């Protein structure tokens, strides 16, 4: 039982950075922009969150700075792709390469240091319930925030007027423009939100999950988040599910290693990536469904000719 609780808790901790990054990217893609720089924004969030937490002594300030760093990186992407109309795929790749380089440069003096990990919330009665208390009511606030965020985004996209406008921009930017909505402004706002989410996801890795800073510590999680968005067919609830699926694979793989099964550690570490590919294939197989769900203007530049 204890092992099971441990595994469940591990899954939740492993999935949370993916939830943040995937939900952020989902909003961006719903607005019709494909930002492949998630990995770069996450790692920038990870390094700035860690460094600022260490310098300021406050985890809250650290997480806010991580969100700001991610948002700023996304804004850079937005200026290039939305105002200067550069190719979104190439610019996203540039953001990832740039983010990995800059984070290593900024984090030079911080490798080896540790911060006090974020404390778990202890709710007097609920957290003391046997088993259930351990599974549901004993995490750090960011995990609850990730669930809240998913709910809010789902509600925002489906039920609010602003969410409808955002989706309209993603489905048909020319029509949205003709109706008088500022396509570029809305997309920039979505991008900054997505960047902030990715930044928080990165900070979760460096502040809560490990808690220390190493170069390249995101190791492909930003790309997995992108795959999760495809997996979710652009629905927040399914993105949450996808993140937990990948979190599950990661943790089970770690526990199998721990049990001393006679498989090389590297082979087991391949699992999350291979599962990502398999899931991606299963989701994309139905061409029609993939087309119906994807925002119609995804990865298309918008240029108002008049």
């Amino acid at each position, binding site marked *: 039982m204890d092992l099971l609780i441990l595994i469940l808790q591990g899954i939740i901790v492993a999935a949370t950075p993916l939830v943040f990054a995937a939900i952020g990217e989902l909003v961006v893609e719903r607005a019709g922009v494909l930002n492949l720089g998630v990995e770069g924004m996450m790692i920038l969030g990870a390094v700035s969150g860690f460094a600022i937490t260490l310098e300021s002594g406050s985890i809250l300030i650290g997480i806010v700075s991580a969100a700001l760093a991610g948002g700023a990186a996304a804004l850079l992407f937005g200026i290039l792709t939305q105002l200067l109309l550069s190719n979104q795929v*190439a*610019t996203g790749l*540039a953001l990832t*390469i740039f983010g990995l380089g800059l984070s290593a*440069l900024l984090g030079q003096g911080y490798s080896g240091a540790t911060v006090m990990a974020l404390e778990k919330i202890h709710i007097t009665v609920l957290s003391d319930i046997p088993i259930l208390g351990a599974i549901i009511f004993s995490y750090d606030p960011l995990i609850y925030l990730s669930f809240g965020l998913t709910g809010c985004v789902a509600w925002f996209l489906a039920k609010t007027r602003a969410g409808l406008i955002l989706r309209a921009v993603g489905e048909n930017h020319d029509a949205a423009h003709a109706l008088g909505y500022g396509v570029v402004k809305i997309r920039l706002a979505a991008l900054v939100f997505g960047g902030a989410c990715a930044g928080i996801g990165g900070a979760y890795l460096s502040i809560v999950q490990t808690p220390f800073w190493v170069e390249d510590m995101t190791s492909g999680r930003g790309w997995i988040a992108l795959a999760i968005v495809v997996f979710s067919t652009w629905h927040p609830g399914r993105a949450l599910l996808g993140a937990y699926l990948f979190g599950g694979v990661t943790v089970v793989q770690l526990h199998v290693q721990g049990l001393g099964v006679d498989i090389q550690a590297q082979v087991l570490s*391949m699992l999350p990536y291979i599962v990502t*590919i398999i899931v*991606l294939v299963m989701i994309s197989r139905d061409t029609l469904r993939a087309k119906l769900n994807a925002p119609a203007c995804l990865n298309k530049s918008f240029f108002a000719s008049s």
Partner: protein
Amino acid sequence: MIRLEARNQTSRTLLFWSPILAVGITVIAGTIMFALLGKAPIRAIAIIFLEPLGDIFSIAEIVVKATPLILIAVGLSFGFKAGIWNIGAEGQFTIGALSGGSVALALYQIDGAWVLPLMCLAGAVGGMLWAAIPAFLKTRYNANEILVSLMLTYVAVLLLSALVHGPLKDPDGMNFPESRIFHDAATLPILIEGTRAHVGFVTAIVAVAISWLVLSRHIFGYQIKVLGQSQRAARFGGFNEKHVTWICLMISGGLAGLAGLFEAAGPVGQLVPALPVGYGFTAIIVAFLGRLNPLGILLGGFVMALTYIGGESAQIELNLPSAVTGVFQGMLLFFLLGIDVLANYKIRMTQPLSRKLSE
């Protein structure tokens, strides 16, 4: 108010000058960055961009780094032109090194002029097979090639590490995770005595020449261009999109695999887990810096190789992390993509509509 106006035709002059302009702006931005970091900016720039050009050894090292970058970038340019985004060249590079290197280890101490060609073949085929996975999943199941090829990069790097820790480990190597050092017949001949510049560079030049011919003179080059501009037009033209996808991924995978083998049989001389150092990703920048044109890529490869060597000396002389190179490369691509807007759009200063109406 500043506003963009679409040009009727892409400006060829600006298309030519924008990489040069981008390099210039990157140097300026780099100067500012070093000043902020508290390092002597002018000296840092001089170390990175000028010092490596000073002696034959450094120039040979530039050739060593430029070889894989040019080979991979030339391969990638085919797909990028057609809108097929193979960004897992790093993985194909790794598998190429692994399969070609395995041949070298299997034929350990067997001499013969055929050993090296066989290794090259194995390397290229290895890279192609690794690229065949995204090609198959894309054409058969519509799976996004960007994500599949990238995920496979992580798998490839782990596979190399697993094999070097296991079956390919040097039996007399004190249990270090590295293979035997390749014997002489399995090592690339050196171009300039006393340096590490190897014949792989000649191959890269040949690849550039052939690609230039194919892209500018062969119907396949035309098909790629049409597919990249408009999928609909390509379909009306009767071009088979799936064929183009396959061929583009095979070319890029094969060249990346060959580059990987060259790296293993050239400067490194054995299989080690740290063999892939990001050439596959940097080559993406090289491809764009060279305007997806083989001749441009040749030049772009040298510029990028220069930042590697310069970054290494900066690391030693100014105690900067090697990541500085990545920052420079990212900035360069950013500026290049940003400046490109000028080739397609004119900047016009216009009065706001409200003022126009009141006049």
